[in-house]
């Protein structure tokens, strides 16, 4: 039914099957929208957050998806600025993932703020003392960039490109995409950093407080580094997952291995920086605030295991796997390591958000417990459903993996045979002179 909208030469499931898939996720989205609607209409009393525990599941989700969505800016940076041409195979998918992550995060923030109709206040009357101001400005700008980057992908749809004005606009916009890639890199650099800086400047929260460089605490740089490290891993993971779900070859293994290698390299640097930062915090920053670091880990379930899991199991181990060429060549190891790296960054954002707020800091404080309400969980699920819907739509109708068609064809001949063919052709040509 919708064949004429699907790229030539690629196969997709039947329209009925696609609609069933979409309907299931749409149902989840509707449930989530109802939950979010309750929060907007009835107020934030629908959540289990309060003035003391003001950051919960939503902020954890925001921080995690923004870190995972960093694959969009980083892949664009590698392709358009560093001219790493292999990234062309995944750039469209990376843009869609980035768009989904950032737009999802902004939507959840709108619910979290409680009064989305007053969202413009932050632009007109920004709080000069808040790192969130920079985050708000940069995320808004970067979401605009992602929407603009998505437009050429959308306009390359088989039917849409038959409209001459769409075709030429897509062409002209694509010519300038390196400007957008540069702007995206600049913006991502700062908002990823400011999201980390947000915790690092919390003097009243010694568990999160960090020293740093000038106005930037060390968490500013760690967030940038960790996002850049897991961005390629998440692109790798999603590409592999889509390959499995669609039962198609979409990306050459070498491209996935390259993504893994880049991710591994950055992850190793991050693990080193994070380890140094943790040692400085344990030996200097934390004692200076009146707390020994071990005290923070005496509150169950947040024992020292969480620190070792974050840095060792989900940091160092995947970094070593991704840096080992032999292991990288094995899909199982590659994908597992990428998954572990993504889990590591999610754990880091969880620690910074939830553990930071749960721990007592004053003598009369107690350890806080927080379990998200069903409305919070529903809103969280709405973002997941929204992401799946947008990505599924894009995968079906847009060319997210430009090499897909090519990978359908198995080259039947060897290099040697190619050489012989060329020689035969040359003989045929020269024989006529």
């Amino acid at each position, binding site marked *: 039914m919708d064949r004429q909208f699907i790229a030539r030469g690629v196969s997709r499931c039947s329209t009925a099957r696609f609609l069933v898939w979409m309907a299931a996720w749409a149902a989840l989205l509707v449930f989530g929208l109802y939950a979010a609607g309750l929060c907007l209409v009835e107020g934030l009393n629908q959540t289990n957050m309060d003035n003391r525990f003001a950051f919960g599941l939503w902020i954890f989700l925001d921080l995690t998806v923004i870190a995972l969505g960093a694959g969009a800016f980083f892949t664009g940076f590698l392709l358009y600025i560093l001219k790493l041409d292999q990234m062309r195979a995944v750039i469209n998918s990376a843009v869609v993932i980035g768009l989904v992550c950032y737009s999802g995060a902004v939507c959840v923030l709108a619910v979290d703020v409680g009064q989305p109709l007053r969202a413009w206040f932050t632009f*007109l009357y920004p709080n000069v003392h808040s790192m969130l101001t920079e985050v708000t400005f940069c995320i808004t700008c970067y979401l605009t960039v992602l929407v603009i980057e998505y437009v050429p992908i959308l306009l390359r749809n088989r039917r849409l490109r038959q409209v001459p004005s769409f075709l030429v606009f897509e062409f002209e916009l694509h010519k300038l995409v390196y400007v957008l890639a540069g702007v995206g890199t600049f913006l991502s650099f700062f908002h990823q950093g400011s999201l980390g800086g947000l915790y690092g400047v919390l003097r009243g929260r010694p568990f999160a407080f960090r020293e740093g460089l000038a106005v930037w605490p060390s968490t500013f740089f760690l967030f940038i580094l960790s996002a850049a490290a897991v961005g390629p891993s998440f692109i790798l993971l999603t590409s592999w997952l889509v390959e499995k779900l669609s039962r198609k070859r979409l990306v050459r293994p070498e491209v996935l291995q390259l993504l893994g290698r880049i991710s591994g390299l950055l992850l190793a640097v991050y693990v080193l920086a994070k380890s140094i930062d943790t040692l400085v915090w344990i030996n200097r920053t934390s004692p200076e605030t009146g707390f020994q670091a071990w005290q923070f880990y005496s509150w169950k379930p947040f024992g020292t295991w969480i620190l070792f899991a974050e840095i060792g199991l989900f940091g160092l181990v995947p970094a070593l796997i991704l840096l080992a060429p032999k292991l990288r060549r094995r899909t199982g190891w590659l994908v597992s390591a990428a998954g572990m790296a993504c889990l590591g960054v999610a754990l880091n954002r969880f620690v910074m958000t939830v553990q930071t707020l749960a721990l007592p800091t004053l003598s009369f404080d107690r350890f806080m417990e927080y379990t998200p309400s069903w409305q919070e969980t529903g809103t969280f699920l709405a973002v997941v459903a929204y992401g799946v819907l947008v990505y599924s739509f894009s995968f079906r109708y847009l060319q997210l993996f430009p090499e897909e068609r090519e990978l359908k*064809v198995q080259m039947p001949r060897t290099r040697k045979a190619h050489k012989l063919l060329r020689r035969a052709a040359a003989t045929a040509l020269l024989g006529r002179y």
Partner: protein
Amino acid sequence: MFPWNYGFQWNAGHIIFLGAFYSVLAAIAATVIAAARGSRRDLAANRAEEIGWREEFHDLPARDRVCRHALTGEIEHGECLHAFDCRQCETHARLTELRPLPWPVKPEEDLFGMAFPLDRFYHRGHAWAQPEPDGTVTVGLDDLGQRLLGVPDAVELPQPGARVETNGTAFRVHKRDANVRVLSPVDGEVVETGGADRGWYLKVKLEVFGEPEFRHLLRGAEVRPWLLQEMERLQLALSAEGAPTLADGGVPVADIAACYPTTDWDAVCGEMFLEP
């Protein structure tokens, strides 16, 4: 933060932050405006066809963008950088100057069981162009193209008076689920069209002063190596769609589509007519 905020005072931080922020906004806006203006210019200059082909060419797999001189073995490797418009290519000019291709003595050529008369020029998208004594050029579908499309379900020919341009759409052919455009080998004005009874063709009056240029088209001894590659591409296109093919040998039948009733013919034709 802003001058209208209570207690606002300018300092270096404000200037840096606001300067960076507004520079970013300006860069984003300028990019979109530049793209919109460029599009307007392109549309006014009727560049849509040319842009469409350039994008399609870019989307072709690397093995399909091979330079004609790599096909003939004159150069080791080579990807065409001019979207099969050799009129702009310095390498082509140099190579043809070094080793000019003689005009074939034998007018008819039977290649792999197909008729490829050597009195005309061939486009890589399976169209031919034959200069006529009256100064016009006849454009038609080559034998492999005809065998791929068999008896078309419908053909959309341009009206006389319409303009066609090199690597733009000459005409469209519908066959089963396939809807492909045939690329025009020449620039000019369509003065006559031929229907099914006379074989689908266009007669084009060239828009050139002086001697018409055909150096972007294949001719003579170049046809065989090109066709060899086309046969290989056909086999690959068919095998990609899960259709059984012979390893080697044999002659393409008159209506190849009829032999593959369940194959995605749109994909096969898209591959062969360079329309990804």
